[in-house]
């Protein structure tokens, strides 16, 4: 343990903070418990990994939906992953700025598609028109001839769709 201890609460500017870099790497790699093909970093729910004024690693996570039942599971998974890497951390839940599907990275969107979940279409915004539907491409065959079966699918964040071209049902990661 010869790494220089941060003294002023900020990672040292001149000497690389290897533990912090490692913590970021470990936390970023934690998979989402409901959608394990993507990590918390892909989803954009890992907001930051930093040190507080005492030098302790602080991980900031944000929930997707207010009532998302996976929030505690995700927080515990990140804390456990860091512990396994020998890093003690404090997990903080932040709600501002709020998470939207715009936070999902391009890499995350591609992983979702490859996993069979259609990624959110377009950017979030107050869509209020009744009976308006997004054009969602089937993650299997790419056809846009698809129909919404249900506004809610296997989790709160997904809608259930059916492809009229290849006849496969699929999940759509809703745009909020």
């Amino acid at each position, binding site marked *: 343990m010869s790494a220089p201890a941060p003294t002023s609460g900020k990672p040292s500017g001149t000497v690389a903070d290897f533990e912090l870099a490692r913590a970021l790497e470990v936390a970023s790699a934690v998979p989402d418990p409901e959608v394990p093909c993507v990590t918390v970093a892909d989803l954009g729910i890992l907001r930051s990994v930093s040190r507080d004024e005492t030098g302790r690693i602080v991980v900031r996570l944000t*929930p997707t*939906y*207010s*009532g*998302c*039942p996976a929030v505690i599971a995700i927080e515990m998974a990140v804390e456990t992953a860091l512990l396994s890497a020998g890093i003690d951390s404090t997990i903080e839940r*932040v*709600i*501002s*700025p*709020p*998470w*939207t599907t715009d936070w999902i990275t391009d890499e995350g969107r591609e992983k979702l598609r490859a996993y069979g979940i259609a990624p959110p279409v377009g950017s*979030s915004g*107050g*869509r*209020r028109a*009744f*009976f308006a539907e997004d054009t969602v491409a089937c993650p299997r065959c790419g056809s846009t001839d698809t129909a919404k*079966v*249900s*506004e*809610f*699918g296997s989790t*709160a964040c997904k809608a*259930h769709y059916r492809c009229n071209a290849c006849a496969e049902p699929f999940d759509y990661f*809703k745009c*909020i």
Partner: protein
Amino acid sequence: MGAAAASAEATTVAAIVEIADDCLILGHRLSEWCGHAPILEEELALANMGLDLLGQARALYAHAGEIEGKGRSEDDFAFLRREREYRNCLLVERENRDFAHTMLRQLYFAAFMQPFWRTVAATSSDETLRGIAAKAEKEMAYHLRHAGEWVIRMGDGTEESARRMADAVIELHRYTGELFMASPARADAVAAKLLPDPGSLRAEWDETIATVFAAAKLTAPEIRVMQKGGRDGIHGEDMGHLLAELQFMQRAYPGQTW
């Protein structure tokens, strides 16, 4: 800290708890649909929207508890108060009755809460409330869309669905006035720029309801005297039954945790 400051805190807590109670009680009503929804998709939708409301309530109770500074947790607010201490509006505690009643109640509430949260997110002097609001606004936007689509589908649907929607309008419309009334605690919160004046959200609500009703072929009844009382803790008979179930575990096994 002087008495004036302490009392300002108490009214802030009361104003936040009113909104949290709306979310908790409506969320509980939606949870009662578990296993009873007309179709599987609605089973999922109602449970998920109930969860949204519960999540909003939890964040608000936790924030109120922090401001109060007496160590009351979100569970203390949700489970360990007496009926008179709940300040939710009467609309949210009304019985589910049938799917038409439930969807209309949802429409009335979401048509109010979506602009409410949008305004809180943009204007509140409280940073935590702005954060809660920014998230809740997005959730209420799809609650509104979901409920609006069902009200249109049923109002302009079969003879039976239209009759049920019309009955629901007659039954529930009289409870909508309370959404726009400011309790003394709310009035203080408005003055402190914490929350918007509910009356200022009336025009947008009227417009949303008029749009949906026109498409649904429904007519809003003229109500001379709107029902009120929830903000003073005066509830209908349904509320006691609701709380008996909501609070059962904490009453039977005080302090139990998962």
